[in-house]
């Protein structure tokens, strides 16, 4: 894992001092809330329905056990004993007091963490494949590139007042586990015919009220020009992105309105100029960073055998454990989606336990996934059973990864001031309706995603089944979408028809799954069946 040197530490320390000063000026009444707002937003501090919410950055979703432990301690000390892992691989605390904000940032800085650029119209925290450095199907580890990107984007002076927020995701496998094409910029590390590594730039994707899948803008950018290409992409956007209407201000609208070809032409022109300026960190810097992401000391010659005699363990093994590139090891995903729970929530004790388990069993490393779960990336197969027992005892062994109850849900009306409807209770009801794990497994891979309003923080456009909360004459109402996906086969869901109330939407989801069970052919997932038979049979069952 990356470790700060004196420069990185000096930057976060300076930020803590600056923000402390700003908070003090606000508390002393030297600043109005209006003046303070843009400053606190630069530090991830939102004023929500009931309290301040603090969003802490987890760069590319990677953290060590000391950092994870600190996240648990912060939940205890400054919140109500919970943290909420988000779809952007960050963590949020929902009950923060302004007076504590400076101390929290100082605690974070003591473990090389911060809340820099977790909100505002700037380049947000970069996300990445949660299996980076561990996946059996990986071409190149995206984390060094993500770290290079983190440093470049931190306090970038030209791009702090963009037309709108800017989100970047980066992956190094063909399997897309990061919804890469639904970001302002998605970078996939690829190999060309000559066997060289390069960055493929997808620009102009996004969700929100106008969902779009990003087109390829830069087919093959040499890794040592990645920063220059980013500068070019961002500069064109900063200059020409729309600022007259905040709903049309994301880069996806610019790319859509002028067209991918014209946007590419402008970027290429800017890129040619930027290459003359020497803005790119030297090759030695990428090498330096790569050094931190070298494989941990894997043992060799380990047995791949696992004792499956405990049936509950076997279920978890089949569902939540993935192939590792190193023989004898496996990737474990800890589901934060227990039946009836709040998706992505973990208690302080659970967070600390996961930290301990990472230290004992995963070379001190954890990852946060965009589906709001936690990954232990490097677990010895021989340790899996003992690990599972400890997770089970802490209520962390739900064997439901990628099943219908592994729901992504935004905070919704329980916390969010922009919400039209509650998301969390709907997620809870669906997970209760499908509580039987056998039934869930029968349904197979089924990604269900819920947003409490059109802003789409819960990725509803990209759910095999999506749910969107709307306001219908002052009453909470839910629309159903089918056919979205955010993997390598990214697609956007289609609304089935009129919306439902809270119980009605749960029934509608169930009816959709019944159609699938009746119509599927061998090996088809829900999404495949939908794609083959289309909307009509589902509509008929749901509204007929």
């Amino acid at each position, binding site marked *: 894992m990356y470790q700060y*040197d004196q420069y990185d530490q000096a*930057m976060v320390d300076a930020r803590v001092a600056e923000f402390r000063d700003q908070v003090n000026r606000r508390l002393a009444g030297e600043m109005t809330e209006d003046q303070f707002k843009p400053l606190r937003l630069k530090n991830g501090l939102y004023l929500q329905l009931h309290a301040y919410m603090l969003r802490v950055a987890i760069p590319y979703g990677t953290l060590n056990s000391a950092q994870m432990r600190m996240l648990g301690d912060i939940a205890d000390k400054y919140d109500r004993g919970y943290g909420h892992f988000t779809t952007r691989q960050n963590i949020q605390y929902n009950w923060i007091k302004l007076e504590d904000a400076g101390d929290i940032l100082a605690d974070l800085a003591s473990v090389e963490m911060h809340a820099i650029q977790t909100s505002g119209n700037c380049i947000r925290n970069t996300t990445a494949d949660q299996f980076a450095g561990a996946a059996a199907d990986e071409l190149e580890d995206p984390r060094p590139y993500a770290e290079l990107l983190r440093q470049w984007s931190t306090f970038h*002076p030209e791009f702090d007042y963009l037309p709108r927020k800017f989100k970047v995701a980066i992956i190094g496998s063909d399997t897309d586990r990061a919804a890469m094409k639904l970001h302002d910029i998605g970078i996939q590390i690829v190999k060309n015919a000559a066997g060289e590594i390069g960055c493929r730039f997808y620009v102009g994707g996004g969700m929100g009220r106008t969902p779009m899948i990003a087109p390829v803008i830069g087919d093959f950018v040499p890794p040592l020009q990645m920063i220059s290409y980013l500068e070019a992409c961002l500069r064109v956007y900063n200059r020409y992105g729309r600022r007259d209407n905040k709903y049309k201000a994301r880069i996806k609208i610019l790319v859509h309105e002028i067209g991918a070809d014209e946007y590419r032409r402008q970027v290429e022109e800017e890129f040619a100029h930027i290459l003359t300026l020497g803005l790119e960190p030297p090759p030695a*810097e990428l090498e330096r960073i790569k050094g931190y992401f070298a494989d941990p000391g894997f043992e060799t010659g380990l047995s791949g055998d696992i004792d499956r005699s405990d049936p509950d363990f076997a279920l978890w093994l089949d569902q939540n454990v993935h192939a590792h590139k190193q023989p004898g090891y496996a990737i474990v995903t800890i589901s934060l989606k227990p039946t009836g729970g709040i998706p992505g929530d973990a208690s302080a004790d659970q967070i600390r336990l996961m930290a301990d388990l990472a230290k004992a069993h995963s070379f001190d490393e954890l990852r946060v996934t965009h589906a709001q779960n936690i990954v232990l990336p490097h677990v010895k197969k021989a340790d899996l059973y003992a690990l599972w027992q400890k997770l089970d005892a802490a209520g962390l062994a739900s064997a439901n990864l990628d099943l219908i109850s592994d729901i992504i849900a935004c905070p919704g009306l329980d916390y969010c001031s922009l919400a039209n409807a509650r998301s969390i209770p709907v997620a809870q009801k669906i997970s209760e309706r499908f509580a039987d794990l056998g039934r869930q497994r029968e349904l197979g891979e089924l990604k269900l995603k819920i947003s409490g309003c059109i802003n789409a923080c819960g990725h509803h456009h990209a759910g095999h089944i999506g749910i969107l909360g709307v306001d219908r004459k002052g009453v909470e109402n839910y629309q159903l979408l089918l056919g979205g996906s955010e993997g390598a086969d990214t697609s956007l869901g289609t609304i089935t028809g009129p919306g439902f109330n809270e119980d009605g939407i749960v029934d509608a989801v169930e009816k959709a799954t019944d159609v699938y069970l009746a119509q599927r052919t061998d090996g088809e997932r829900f999404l495949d069946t939908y794609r083959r038979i289309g909307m009509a049979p589902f509509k008929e069952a749901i509204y007929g």
Partner: protein
Amino acid sequence: MVENALRYRDDEPVADPAVTVDAFAEQTNASAVRIEPGDDARILLPHLGRLSLVEVNFPAYTDGRGYSAARILREHGYDGELRAVGDVLLDQLSHMRRCGFDSFAPNQAIDRAAADKALATWPEVYQKTVDGRAAIWAKRHGLA
């Protein structure tokens, strides 16, 4: 006399009134121009030699186009006064300096001491821009 002026240059302030980009194209003797957010700074590039003042207007601090305009001018060698005017606030000064501004005329006066403190916020910088500061990567690898 410019109101609320904060300057980080040693030369004498330019007295000429800044003209609009459109007017500049017609007045071949104008030496001061004012860029609005929607103007393309690149139009000025063939004329940098005769310019001694470029004002970049920020009608609202949230409109960041002027940062790109400033940087583009400096990247092409402009070394006259580059003045940010309008809704220019204390907490934006350091980024503006990094993009090449060396003079400020904010709507609301900023105290010089407070400005100097704000400009000293970042002990280091991660990016190479046009302000001559060595990026952290350059220091790490002995390039600075």
